[in-house]
C-alpha cells in the first residue's frame, strides 16, 4: 500500500484534469490522471495543502476518503474550468490564510497525523464559532471538499448510499435502516 506521502505526490502531479468521455453519452468529465502533469490551477505547494486538508476533513474509513476519490483533483478542475477570476483569487487567498494559521507553530504539512488533526480541528472550530469573515475562505473551501466528495461515485454510492434510480418514494424511512437516498 502506498504511503500517504506517495499517494499525495501522485495526486499532486496527476491533476492535469484531462477530459475524458463518460461511458454514458458524450458528457465531458473532469478526471484526474496519472500522467505526471501538474495541477492546472494549483501550484504543487497549494496542491499538497489541498490534499492534506481534504484527507483530514474526509478520511478513508470503511468507505473511500477524499483522496481515494480524488477530491483534490476535482477542486483543481473546478478552479481551472468553472471558477471566475474573482473566485480563483478568493480561493487562493483562502489557502494562504489557512496555511498561515495552521503553520503558526511550525510546518503544518510536516506534522504527524495527531498533530495535523488537532491543528485543523482547532481551525475548524474557530471557523464555525467566529463571525469573523477572515475564516469564510476556509468554510468555502470545506464546502468545495464536501460537495466534491459527495458528487463523486465513491462518495455518493459508497458513503451516502446514493441511488441513481430510486424507482419509488418512501416518505418515512427509519434512519437505522441505512437505506439509500
Amino acid at each position, binding site marked *: 500500500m502506498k504511503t500517504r506521502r506517495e499517494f499525495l505526490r501522485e495526486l499532486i502531479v496527476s491533476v492535469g484534469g484531462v477530459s475524458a468521455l*463518460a*461511458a*454514458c*453519452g458524450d*458528457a*465531458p*468529465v*473532469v478526471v484526474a490522471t496519472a500522467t505526471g502533469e501538474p495541477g492546472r490551477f494549483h501550484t504543487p505547494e497549494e496542491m499538497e495543502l489541498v490534499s492534506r486538508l481534504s484527507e*483530514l*476533513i*474526509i*478520511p478513508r*474509513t470503511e468507505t473511500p476518503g477524499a483522496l481515494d476519490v480524488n477530491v483534490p483533483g*476535482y477542486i483543481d*478542475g*473546478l478552479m481551472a*474550468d*468553472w*471558477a*471566475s477570476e*474573482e*473566485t480563483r483569487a478568493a480561493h487562493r487567498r483562502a489557502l494562504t490564510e489557512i496555511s498561515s494559521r495552521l503553520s503558526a507553530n511550525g510546518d503544518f504539512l510536516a506534522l504527524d497525523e495527531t498533530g495535523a*488533526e488537532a491543528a*485543523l*480541528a482547532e481551525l*475548524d*472550530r474557530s*471557523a*464555525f*464559532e467566529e463571525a469573523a469573515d477572515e475564516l469564510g475562505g476556509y*468554510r468555502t473551501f*470545506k*464546502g468545495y471538499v*464536501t*460537495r*466534491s466528495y*459527495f*458528487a*463523486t*461515485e465513491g462518495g*455518493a454510492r459508497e*458513503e*451516502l*448510499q446514493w441511488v*441513481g*434510480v*430510486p*424507482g*419509488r*418514494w*418512501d*416518505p*418515512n*424511512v*427509519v*434512519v*437505522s435502516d*441505512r437505506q*439509500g*437516498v
Partner: protein
Amino acid sequence: MAEATEFDAIVVGSGMSGGMSAKELCERGLRVLVLERGPEVVPERDYTDQLAPWETKNFDNVSQDEVERHYFRQYPGVPYALKESNKDFWVKDDEHDYVEAEGTRYEWLRGYHTAGRSIMWSRQTYRLGPQDFEENLREGVAIDWPVRYEDIAPWYEKVETFVGIAGSEEGLSQLPDSVFQPAFELTEAEKAFKRGVEAAFPGRNVIPARVAHLTDATEEQRSLGRSNCQLRNRCHHGCVFRAYFSSLNATLPAAERTGNLTMVHNAIVQSLEYDPESNRVSGVRVVDAETNETRTYTSRIVFLNASAIASAMILLQSQSESFPTGLANRSDQVGRNLMDHVSGAGAAGIMRGFDDRKVFGRRPGGIYIPRYANVTENDKPYSRGFGYQGGASPLGHANGQIPGIGREFKESHRRPGPWRVSIGAFGEQLPNPDNRVTLHPTRRDRWGNPLAVFEVRYSRNEEIMLEEARTDAIAMLEAAGCEQIVSAPVNLTNPGNRIHEMGSARMGRDPAESVLNGWCQAHDVPNLFMTDGAFMTSAACQNPSLTYMAFSARAANYAADLLGEGVL
C-alpha cells in the same frame, strides 16, 4: 420533393399549449403544421437525465464566466434548473436580447427548441377555481372573463386524463380536484405541519403538491412510451422514462401518430399576413433561423402558441393598412396587461421530533397550501390571494457548513439531521394595461425582428399581499411548532421570474376592449386563435400550464367544429 406549404392548421410554437393544440387538431383529422423557432430536440440524443453527478463536467455547474457571458438573465432566475449538461435548453441572453424600460426589470426566461419550456418546467399543476373567473367582475378590475369555471371544467378533465397528474382529492372549492393519479405521500414532518396549520387556521389546508408526473400510467400513456416517475429529480434534463409531462414526452408524439403532423424547426415567425377581403389570416411568414431565408405557409386556421410575449409580438409585427397597430389589435390591448406571478415572501423553520427519519427517493413536489385569502378568510387588506409551495425535508449537512472534521464529520452526512419546513408564496398579479410588451422602434435581432421592450411594475396590492404572506407564513410555522423560524424581508421577484407570463391578448366579450372572445378566437380575425398565456384575463395564483392546455384543447375542438361546419 418540395416542402408542403399548405395546411389545414398552423400552430406557432411547440411548447405546453402548442403541443396540446397540435394534438387536438391532428386528432380531429386536420393536417397540421407546427412551426418551432428553435432546433429539434431528440430525447435519445439530447436528454441528459441519465448522467450521474460524477459524469458531468464540473459536477454540472455552468462555469461562472459562461454565466456572466451568456446566461446573465436566465441563470439568476433558475440556478436550480440551468446546469452544464442542459444549458442548451436555455437561450443565451447575449444572443436573444431585450430591453427593459427605465426603472423596471423583467426576466424573460426562455427555451427555444422542440417543446419549448415544457421540457424545463417545474410541473406544478393546478386548476383555476370558480372565483378566479369571477373576481374581475366582482371587484371592477380590468374586464370580466367571458367564460366561467363550468365552461372549462370538462376540458380540464380531458386534458388531465391525457397528461397524468399526481395529486390527492381534497374537495376544495377554490382549487378543484383534477383527474388524479396517486399523490406523492407527505413526509411525517409535513403531516405534522399539516395538523398544526389546519388546527390553528380552519380554512387553510396543507395538501400534497399536484404535479404532472405519472404514478399509475394509463394504457394511453404507456402507448406513448411513457412510464411511472422513477423519483430521480432529474426532470430539468429531460426524462427518458417520459414520466413527467412535456410536449415532447406526450402531446407531440400523440399528434405525430395520427399521421397528420408536420413539424418544421428553426422557423421563426415574423408576421401573419392578412387578407382584408376575406378578413382572414392568409399566410404565416417565417425566417429560417439558420439560413435567414424567408418563406410563407398557408392554412385555414392559425393558432398562436409562441408564448404570451412572443405571440403578442407577432401580432404587433403584423401591421397592415387594415391593422396599422398590429393584427387583431383594434382594441389596442395586444401586448398589454402582461402578468406573472409574484414571489419573494416565505419562511422556514425546524420541526423537531423527526431526526430518526429520512426519505427514500427524490420526489418532484412537496406541499401546497391553496389560496385562502379572500376565499375562506375575508379580512384582508388586499384583493385576490396566493398559494404557498414548499415542503419539509431533512436539513442534512448542506455543503459541509457544519463544524467538525474526520470520521464524525464524514459520517454525520448519513444522518438526516433536523427537519426543515419551508414555504414560499406565489401571488396573483392584477391586470394593468400599462404593464406591457412593445416593439423597440429601432433595435432588431439578427433575423431583423424588433426587440421586445418590457415595462412591467407591480402594484401596491402585490406589495401588501406579499408582506401579509410573509406574516402568515411565520404564523403557520409557529402554530405547527416550528423552531428557529427564519424569514427574509419581502423582496418581490422581478416580473417574469416565475415564468408564468400571461394576459397580453386578453379574452373578453367586447371587441373594443379585448383581443379574443371566449373561445380564444380573435374578435377581429376569425381564423386566428391564441391559446398560450396571452388569453388570460386575470392571472389567478395557480401555476397556469394546465389552464393553457385546457383552453387549447377547447379552442382546437371549437375551431375544428367551425371548419367542419364551413364557417371558417
